[in-house]
């Protein structure tokens, strides 16, 4: 599903070049779940941005579902996200002017799906928010907002789900609930899941745990994290 080859990324910070990712090689199979862990600034978010096609690498290649992202223009990358990628943000980023239902329906409506509302309603039901469909984000709790965000990320059955600290803004109990929902839906959908997280429990639930350290990727075992 994901093939990274000699991936490099560098930012200029105060005029100085900082290598965030260095020579990353990675292959993730379809349906697999992968946690990316590491301290702040280690490059987790950058890796997700590159996988989403929201930033361009300095070197190396990325292939998603057999499609090379090199050479795709902005519109083609947008189409790629629309059709194959779902993103869950730490800060939810729901559209405040839309109801929960409309937020979930967004990816389908962008793709022109005729039954967008119906599928969105089903997905809201799946995350336990059927009765909050007509509520606006401001009327929902943090946990509920993140459940709406998960529903939005998965409603169009993307091949790849990227989650950036999905429980980072939530308390422990809510975070666990969100984590349950995310993994349940992932198991049902057979999508590939990449989660950037500081949460060891969440990371341990993934098939694989990858640690980023000074821009390099180190493979770890999930059960080791909990010890």
């Amino acid at each position, binding site marked *: 599903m994901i093939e990274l080859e000699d991936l490099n990324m560098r930012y200029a910070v105060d005029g100085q070049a900082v290598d965030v990712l260095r020579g990353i090689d990675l292959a993730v199979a379809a349906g697999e779940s992968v946690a990316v862990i590491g301290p702040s600034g280690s490059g987790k*978010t950058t890796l*997700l*941005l590159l996988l*989403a096609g*929201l*930033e361009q690498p300095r070197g190396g290649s990325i292939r998603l579902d057999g499609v090379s992202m090199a050479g795709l223009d*902005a*519109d083609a990358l*947008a*189409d*790629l*996200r*629309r*059709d194959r*990628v779902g*993103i869950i*943000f*730490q*800060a939810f*980023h*729901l*559209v*405040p*002017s*839309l109801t929960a239902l*409309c937020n979930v329906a*967004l*990816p389908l*409506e*962008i*793709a*022109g799906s005729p039954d967008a509302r119906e599928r969105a309603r089903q997905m809201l039901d799946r995350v336990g928010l059927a009765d909050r469909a007509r509520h*606006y984000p401001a009327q929902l709790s943090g946990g509920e907002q993140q459940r709406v965000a998960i529903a*939005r990320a998965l409603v169009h059955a993307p091949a790849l789900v990227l989650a*950036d600290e999905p429980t980072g803004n939530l308390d422990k109990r809510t975070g666990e609930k969100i984590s349950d929902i995310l993994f349940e839906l992932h198991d049902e959908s057979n999508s590939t899941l990449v989660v950037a997280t500081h949460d060891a429990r969440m990371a341990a639930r993934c098939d694989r745990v990858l640690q980023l350290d000074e821009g390099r990727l180190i493979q770890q075992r999930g059960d080791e994290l909990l010890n």
Partner: protein
Amino acid sequence: MSFSIRFAWRDLRASGHTLWVFCVCLMLGVTLVAATGGLYRQIGGALLDDTRALMGGDLEVEARTPLPDDVLAWMRERGTVSLLTEVRTVMGTPDGGIQVVELQSVDEHYPLYGELVLEPGESLETVTSREGGQWGLALDGMIAERLDIQIGDEVAVGSLTMEVRALVRHQPDRSLQANWRGAPALISPEALDASELVGPASRVEYEYRVRTEADAGEWRRRFYAAFPEGEWEVDTFAGRSERIAERLGQVASALLIIGFSTLFIGGLGVYNSIQAYLQGKLSTIATLRALGLRNGMLAAVYLLQVGILALGASLAGALAGFGIALAGAIVAAEEMHFDTAAAGMLPALFVAVAFGLLTAFTFAMPAIGRALSIDPAALFRMIDGSATATPKRWWAATAAGCVLIVLLVVLVLPDPLFGLGFIAVAGGLLALLEGIVRGLRRLARALDDHPALRSRFALRLAVANMQRPGSPLRTTLLSLGSALTLLVACAIVVGGLVRAINETIPGEAPALVLYDISDDQLDDVVNALHTASDAARVDTAPLVLGRLRAVNGEPLRGSGDERHEREARDEHKLTYRANNIDNVTLERGLWWTGEDASGIARVAMEDREADQLGLRVGDRLTFAIADGELDAELTGVYRQKGMQTSFWFEAIFSDGALDPFIYRYVGAAYMSDATALTAQKAIAGMAPNVVTVRTEAILQTARGLLGQAVAGLAVIALVSLGVSLLVLTGVMATSRTRQVYDATILHSLGTRLRAIGHSLHLEYALLALITSLFAIVMGSAIAVPLLAWRLKLPVEAPLLLGVMVALSVSGLCLYLGARYLLRRLRLNPAMLLRSGG
């Protein structure tokens, strides 16, 4: 596309209410453009569509004496000819008052175009015939209502007492100046003869109207060719149309420019408003992009939102403008006697809506482009800190919008020269404004560490705020400064006019002006004036009509120069200086003193006439007067004083030069208005052919007209001011968050709330002062030349009025702004009071 529309609409419904400043700014600007454009269309259409009826024919040959038979025969062979004989005179009203009227007698062909409507509906011939030994008269309906004259009342005209037998309800060729110069009264040609008003001293106009299938211009050319020596002036309906259109176009252009200025100032409100709106949408935009919405679709969403709002606001503005234009047209229709047709205004409304849409898109595009430049990566990081900048292609689209607006302005304004002038002045003003803003910021930077400010923290903070990024200085100057400039210019012009009407003219102009006194009546008229008031100053001067024939021996006629040809046929009023009866001032050259050894007469000419012909002091001028000629040397060029001028003489000769040609005089009497009224009645009784006009009567009409004009200008200026205040509101709303943040930081560092408030007040006081100075300078630069050169009025006192208006309005507006901002600051006491200040 359907997703874009659905999303745009849903998003707008949920959060579009924050764009009310956008809507109101646009609506008010479009209202002004639609109102002025609609009114122009209405009046222009009504007047220009039927200039033939307004002029009374396809052509008009104007003569001071009846045309010779051979000329008339030539004309009748080439069309239907109708004669209207007109004499300006005074009419004695039933209540013993005096009213200036245009006495008109017509023949059986009248009117050649349109229809004369009388009440009761009898024929003009029947109404004006002699019955029971008394001649009948049809009086203009408007003047009859004003003077409360009924059918059956008797009025005195010349030596006759006539019966008002009908009121004129519609006269197709009623003069547009009838309410000002004298309303028409129709009598029969026989009654005119019997009135004894037609004599050597009276100024009778014989207007021969011609209806012809031939091209009017060609007809005139052949007429001039057939009678090359004739002194008659021939006017065509096309020429009249052009002059009306030109004058209307100038007035409409000036008003439309105010409308456009307001709309473009409103554009700043559009920009600020949409920028604040999209600032709150950055997260949504980034999210939509992260979800895979293409940039084009995303742009379409926000352009659609702008389009929906702009269309709604523009339609509402056009509707409001339509209402105002219709109300104005109804008032104008009553004054000028034309029918209103609302459909004629539709093109103007469409244009106003087009301007609204174009302005909205042009001003919104930089903000949309900037918001869309948000990197979705910001969603993973900190959205507030993410940098946005308007991409080049959005600036290019904005530039294209500006070009379209400029083109449309030039195309839409009735007078394209006004349009080009407006664009040039607007461009110059923007450059000037930018220079001023930069200068002020540089000054503020220089003062930042000035010793004088070191111990004055609040003032230092206020001065520093002038040059900080996001300072409202530029927007305030552009919006409030522009509107205030308009307000100051209006205040100075209106103040000047009010002062002229209430003080200058009554103080300097004669109370009674007399025309057409024959030489044998002169002594009696002067005696009557002195009988009314012993102390009255009475000036009399001859009035001789003549034409300029040659300059330095070169005949004007036949010169091939169209301007010279026209001038050669133009009849001039000639006189002596006679105690400077016409209040003129010498501009160039000298008045003569004593006799000239060469014996040649000397003459001074009015500047407009002299400049039209390019005359220079020392030129030898030859005038044709009656059947003779008079040579004179041009020694000076004078300027009329303006509204205080009574007669508008075109040439003033050295004493004695005109003596052989004098058989008519004019006079000016300086006395109280009550005495003038007594004298007027006495003169009407003894010399009914003498036209007497009381200055106070004219001033009363002028006050009425000025009142209407002031009301109209006040509405326009207030709408403009309202828009600029909205723009400022938008600016304050945009900068409020940052100011609250700054204030919080300052407060947490130990600055007392009072000091923060004090600094804010000082900042706005400085802004008010700078804006006022800007408006005073710019407003005076517009108003003073207008007053001095166009209206010829003194300007000293109104300047003070302009200063007071600028200081008080800008001070009030910005004080309210500062209060508003301070109130908002207090809304967050937990944050501000935590440090116990």
